[in-house]
């Protein structure tokens, strides 16, 4: 395990409260109180982003879990990358996409066709979503990811193409299809 780099790498933008510096320092040192404080500030919004991407509470919790477990080590690489919340959002999106890819892989192997054993099912508590939100959640995974990234998170087609490993044209086509489905459902 490498030792944490000195705090000098943490050049934060002035929009961040000054105390953040200390919190990050504690988090990098693996102090649970630092992790807990960052969790209080960011977990809810990160969870929502993950939930929009994944469409499942349990999966969203899993990626948020993974992000915070990996945070102390990852923060050592967090150099001058702009605002912390944006940096965290980018990571949760990447984690969510990796999760989707893994899901796809698992679904493509026969193993997952097996009947679930009792007690392993995850139940999704019903959320109070608007009609639009429910319709977005009901989109197929590939379309939902593009729609959420574009319309909710505000990414460009180029960025979406890079994140999803598809062409720019394909990301436009998918967005159009996603909106068309929503239109048919909602309008």
């Amino acid at each position, binding site marked *: 395990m490498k030792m944490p780099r000195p705090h000098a790498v943490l050049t934060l933008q002035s929009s961040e409260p000054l105390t953040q510096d200390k919190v990050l320092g504690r988090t990098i040192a693996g102090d649970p109180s630092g992790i807990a404080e960052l969790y209080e500030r960011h977990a809810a919004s990160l969870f929502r982003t993950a939930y929009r991407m994944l469409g499942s509470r349990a999966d969203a919790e899993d990626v948020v879990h993974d992000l915070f*477990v*990996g945070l102390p080590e990852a923060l050592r690489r967090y150099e001058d990358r702009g605002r912390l919340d944006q940096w965290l959002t*980018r*990571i949760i999106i990447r984690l969510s996409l990796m999760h989707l890819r893994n899901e796809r892989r698992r679904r493509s192997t026969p193993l997952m066709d097996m009947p679930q054993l009792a007690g392993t099912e995850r139940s999704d508590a019903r959320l109070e979503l608007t009609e*639009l939100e429910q319709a977005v959640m009901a989109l197929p995974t590939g379309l939902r990811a593009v729609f959420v990234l574009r319309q909710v998170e505000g990414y460009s087609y*180029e960025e979406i193409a890079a994140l999803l*490993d598809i062409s720019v044209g394909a990301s436009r086509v998918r967005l159009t299809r996603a*909106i068309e489905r929503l239109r048919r459902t909602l309008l």
Partner: protein
Amino acid sequence: MSFIDKVTVMHYFSRHPAHAELSDFLAGSDPGARSRIASHLEHCQSCRDVLQLLRGASASQWNAPGTEPSPELLARILESRASDARVILPSDTQIAGSRSTPNRLSLIAAAAVILAVIGGVLVTRTASDVEAGATSGTLVLNPAMPRPGQTVSVTYRAAAMLANQPTLVLRARMRDTGSESYNAGFPTVRAAMLQRGADGDFTGHFVIPANIVYAALAVADTSAQSVDDNAGRDWEILVSDSTGKPLFTALDQRANDMMGRNWEEGLATAHRMVALYPRDLRAWSWLRAFNRWLGKVGDDSIRVRDRAQLAKFDSMFTNGVASDADIGRMAWFADGIDSSIAAHWRARLMQQAPRNSFAVQWRLIAILDTLHQRNDTATVLRQMDALWDSAPLDPKAQIATYATGMAMDAADTTLIKLWTTRQALGGGDKRDFARWVATQFTKIPALRAEGIKLVRNEMDSLAILHPSEQALDETIAEQRARHNVSRRNLLATLGQALVASGDYAGARQVLDEAVSKGWNLEVFRAVRTASLAAGDTAHALTMAARISVDPRTSPTFTDSLRPVAERVLGAAGWNAELATARKEFVKRMLESSTPRSIRGDPRLRDLDGQTTKLSALAQGKVTIVAFWSRFCGPAIEDLPVMNAVATRLAKSGVRVVSVVDEANSSAALKQFLRDRKVTMPTYLDSWHEGSRAFNQWGTPDYYVIDADGRIRFAGTNSAETVLARAEALRMSEN
């Protein structure tokens, strides 16, 4: 404006922009199209609605109540951190605002460190500080459900530990329709070489041999330093028909592969068989078998269903055509469900198909019964010889196993050779079997010379590490370690055989090597004998001291030795010898210890229904966690031994937590414990959190955790071994 112009303009306004263009309009991008879309929107309610929909999707609208993580999530995160779980997050390349070419390589790098804290224990494989997720990559097979003989292309996004290699090996354990249960001695084949492409993905392809129906896969580097076995699950191929439905034989082989590897997954396979092939008695037989093995066959719902299925098959085979194999399966399936139906099919089997595998097994049992009644080994062996001649291949080995044991008891060298040769035809690990035969021969005076020769041959064969003899998930280091253990055991056998044949000098030479490696009571005993025979009392006492300090040795041995030892060495000298032996014991035992973290802090329930946590039971002390089950023969047999171990260790402050695989306490369980005089504290693994935290399957399975709450030794099914390990650990911490 002419009529033509009017139509054109109308057309211009009425052509709906693509939805993506509306999104661009909203985002303020593509200024060139702006005025056209704005004009269109003036006339088009439908597009205005879409625009409204898109506005509604902006992030600020997504804060509905309930879209918050559950209150326990933070605790779960902190627990994972505390148990040393680590996740390597994807590297953050500057995505936002960048208009550069997508950086595919960095994406692959991110995916390469795919995190996997997937409800298992984080087992370190190569380096001591390999982080979670560094050991599992992503393997994509195309097609995932190939047909027989089809070419499968493979894309592997490497785990961090394999990502730097130019070439990787796709390993496979391939099963044809006749492959046997369990995975012992299965050759591991190189299915394909995977080459790293410019994008960092590894790709390759292989053809599934036409006779292969199931394969378990893993990825290794070319020198087998690291293996990615998908966190113990392996990747899999089930050969399918043209509709994508897995062949029955593929599921059949998956069930065989899961035996001894993952019983629950085996049961799941059987469930899938009956779902896909409900009219096939073999599917229902598998399901019944796994339910039996997992102790579920007594459940009411299962009993009712089995009974209904039996009635269905009974009428189907009574009114239709039944092959010999069907009759055999009916007799087996009905056994334990309906005695009269079972008797009917058994009688029909014996009359119509006495050479069927099931029939041969029942005939074998009948022959063995007569042995208990009359104790006439010679007659029984003659009967078994006749049975062997008429048996099909698969019960042949079973007959030979029993016959070999009897021939050895009778010390009949001709029969021993005959039956061991026949037994070698059976399945399982051929090398293991050859070593077993060699060892057995050294114990029989008339065969000892031959046994010594065989043992030396086997030791020579251990010097070579054949890739095909690596288990699917085995690294070269693990294979070497396994060979070293075998070699030490063979050295001990050889030494003991040389002692028995009077060659003390030769024995000492062989045994000194065994003594210098590891801690093996058998070896120490043999060296002691050889040393005494050679007049080397001092060395004999050094060995005696080692035997004495081992907690598995009975105190009587130690007590009876003391006067002799003190006469030779004096009281102080003998105590010093014992102290050295104790140090050596601790050192050698801990050499085989690899610390792992427990995932989380599993909840258990006591017999009165109170929930508690493992950490509260261990209280920062060396603790044995003993998994067992009321429905597992070996576990029940071992229960009194484990209980004795617990009583004994209580004196030295080592705790034993006995964990039984049941959800709820019951009068039957309490009675069971009373009947067997089990006094060690017993808890219920009500939520399977215990077995998940230790990543363990099957019972009995005993673990030692240290004062810091880490697992120090892999599970063992021997109460004596776990006793020695726990004592060594306790002594090391004092």
